[in-house]
């Protein structure tokens, strides 16, 4: 009995302390508030390159995005000039958990804006605000961006970041040492691969492993092969459900891919290596001190990954890339800004990002590529400029098939290719995925 008292006292103290701290704790603004010493009043409508019409200093915009770490730092740097000019603070939240965005939207408390993926434009189309109402400048974006961002005739998404995937990374130093040259047609690429194999080298490094999205590097590769063999219109028709996934063209692409992905002569450790290597590790294998392969097909972020582990590598000497030869158009990942609440501060954000200044800032900071065409001349690194060129000259741009078809298609595609590399029956697998595709169209 006596023993109880100090315990209860301690508990009571802890409880009261927590409650007190909670009451006194002020919310942590994780961005630097603008230095604004004047009394809060309406900001000037136009401050330099920024259109701040209707914004009151101290307004805030709540944001939700998937970027964290260094990516978040880049976004903050891009938004900084706008925040200072218009006197807006940003309340950001960062999570890769789709559940959070979904819950907030369903419960009626969405963030003001969200930076998310293409399927969410369709998923939340009833809650999003038309970009035209918000004053976005459509002229700065190529036609295909508008196509992707328009759902049921309304322009709902502003593309802010693009990362082409149709690239093959290699080490010029290793190529030179072995006497290989960069291919410019698909036939040349095929011949180069055969050449490497007969020299006793392993051409490809592949890695599927990626948590619950395991397999996406494989489906990306399939889509790039389709861009070569069939073209972007074919891909877009698959996305629209007009061409079934078990079409002959798709099967051919899988067979081309399978020949490389499952054979230890063509890719590091064959099927097992493909399945169990992490997608980041696959990149590293081409550039390690004793490289295990000569090429890896990967998106633009690959350079960031390899510099993380091998910071001494030099672009152009130790690592470089070329577009998948023969691809008619590019496949790429893209991030989209979508708006749930129409406020003056949000409008000024939209106007900023779609303006010339916005495009330039994005390219200067170097947060991947900016779909905003005005950024094309502002890239600070040779590598980014080369990617931007590829994007600017692309005759078509297709988003990821798996990202674009709603419902269970994406995960069916990932499990499908994983099963295929694991030795499954291709026809059965393609039928299953086509089934998921048909199913998605009906829901």
């Amino acid at each position: 009995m006596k023993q109880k008292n100090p315990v209860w006292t301690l508990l009571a103290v802890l409880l009261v302390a927590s409650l007190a701290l909670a009451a006194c704790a002020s919310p942590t603004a994780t961005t630097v508030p603008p230095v604004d010493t004047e009394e809060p009043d309406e900001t000037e409508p136009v401050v330099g390159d920024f259109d701040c019409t209707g914004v009151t200093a101290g307004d805030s915009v709540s944001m939700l995005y998937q970027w964290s770490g260094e990516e978040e730092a880049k976004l903050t740097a891009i938004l900084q000039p706008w925040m200072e000019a218009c006197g807006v603070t940003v309340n950001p939240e960062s999570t890769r958990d789709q559940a959070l965005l979904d819950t907030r939207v369903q419960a009626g408390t969405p963030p003001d804006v969200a930076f998310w993926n293409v399927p969410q434009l369709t998923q939340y189309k009833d809650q999003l605000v038309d970009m035209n109402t918000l004053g976005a400048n459509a002229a700065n974006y190529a036609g295909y961006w508008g196509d992707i961002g328009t759902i049921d005739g309304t322009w709902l998404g502003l593309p802010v970041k693009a990362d082409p995937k149709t690239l093959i990374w290699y080490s010029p130093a290793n190529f030179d040492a072995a006497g290989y040259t960069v291919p410019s047609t698909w036939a040349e690429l095929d011949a180069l691969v055969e050449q490497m194999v007969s020299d006793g080298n392993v051409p490809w490094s592949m890695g599927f492993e990626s948590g619950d999205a395991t397999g996406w590097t494989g489906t990306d590769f399939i889509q790039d092969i389709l861009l070569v063999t069939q073209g972007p219109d074919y891909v877009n028709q698959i996305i629209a459900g007009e061409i079934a996934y078990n079409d002959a063209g798709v099967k051919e692409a899988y067979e081309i891919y399978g020949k490389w992905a499952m054979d230890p002569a063509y890719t590091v450790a064959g099927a097992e290596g493909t399945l169990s290597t992490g997608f980041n590790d696959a990149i590293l294998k081409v550039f390690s001190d004793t490289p295990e392969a000569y090429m890896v097909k990967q998106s633009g972020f690959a350079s960031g990954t390899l510099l993380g582990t091998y910071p001494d590598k030099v672009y152009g000497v130790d690592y470089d890339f070329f577009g998948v030869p023969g691809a008619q158009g590019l496949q790429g990942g893209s991030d989209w800004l979508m708006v749930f609440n129409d406020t003056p501060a949000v409008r000024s954000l939209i106007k900023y990002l779609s303006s010339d200044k916005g495009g330039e800032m994005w390219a200067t900071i170097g947060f991947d590529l900016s779909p905003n065409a005005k950024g094309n001349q502002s890239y600070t690194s040779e590598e980014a400029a080369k990617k931007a060129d590829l994007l600017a000259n692309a005759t078509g741009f297709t988003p990821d098939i798996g990202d674009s078809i709603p419902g269970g298609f994406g995960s069916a595609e990932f499990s499908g290719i994983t099963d295929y590399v694991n030795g499954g029956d291709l026809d059965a697998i393609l039928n299953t995925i086509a089934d998921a595709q048909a199913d998605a169209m009906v829901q």
Partner: protein
Amino acid sequence: MAKAVTASVMKQKKGVPWLYLLPAIIVMTIFILYPMLNTVNLSFGNANGTASAATTCREGQPCWGIFENYRYALTNELNTTTIATTWESFWVSSYGNMIKWLLVMVTGSVGIGLIFAVMVDRIKQEALAKSIIFMPMAISFVGAGVIWKFVYNYGTSQVQTGILNAIITGLGFQPVSWLTGSPLNTFMLVVVGVWMWTGFCMTLLSSAIKSIPEEIIEASRIDGATNFEIFAKIQVPIIAPTIIVVITTMVINVLKLFDIVYVMTGGNYGTNVIATRMYTEMYTNAHYGRGTAIAVILILLIVPFIVMNIRRFTKQEAMR
């Protein structure tokens, strides 16, 4: 029977029990019961809850009307072309995996927890030993995912960064990709689960063992019983109610298990469990109808265990 039960509890003024119960009932109704009813309701709808599930039927495919989501939840993972394929696909479906998890993880964590609790009761550094077993619970699932990445990692070059493959290659064999080969991968994940949850079982069982009065143990030692006999014939029977509680709790935890699978394989390579499947349907595929149907099935799976527990309580009270 009824007389015996009521004799063991005291009669009291009407309404006193409700005084004790009301806060709990109110809170749980708001936070769990109401959402659960909402969930059941959604399980009869389509992807975003705007229409009945019957509208999602496709031509030429079997259709269960408003139970369409349940049909999907129960049969989608099965390949029903032949008996053999059905059997095979069942064992890598989320239901088959649940059976594997239940059998191995519950026996593993409760068994090891019990044996360890009994053994450590006798040594001096008990608190330290218990803390070591308990520590994995304190590491969040994200941390555990990283830890076991360093155990299971599969390296394709000469160098291995995962210790299990390092041991295997050290012995001269080829490295194994632990997490991609079914059905081994499910058991590798179960190992992680046992590693994390044994501390939980051990803590509860240890406190139960300590509540056995000292005299009984001493008396039997004097009578010449060995440690094993004391364990099997005295300790286990006395703490049997606690063991059953621990088993029930572990069954519930395993049924709900999500994080370990999600963090390590995402449910791929045939490691899917019910909770990861529910998550994938709800958030990745944005299909509320199917996600909630899976959740309802999960809730229904626990019913037999509840019935068993209630029966046991009734018997227990009759004996008091």
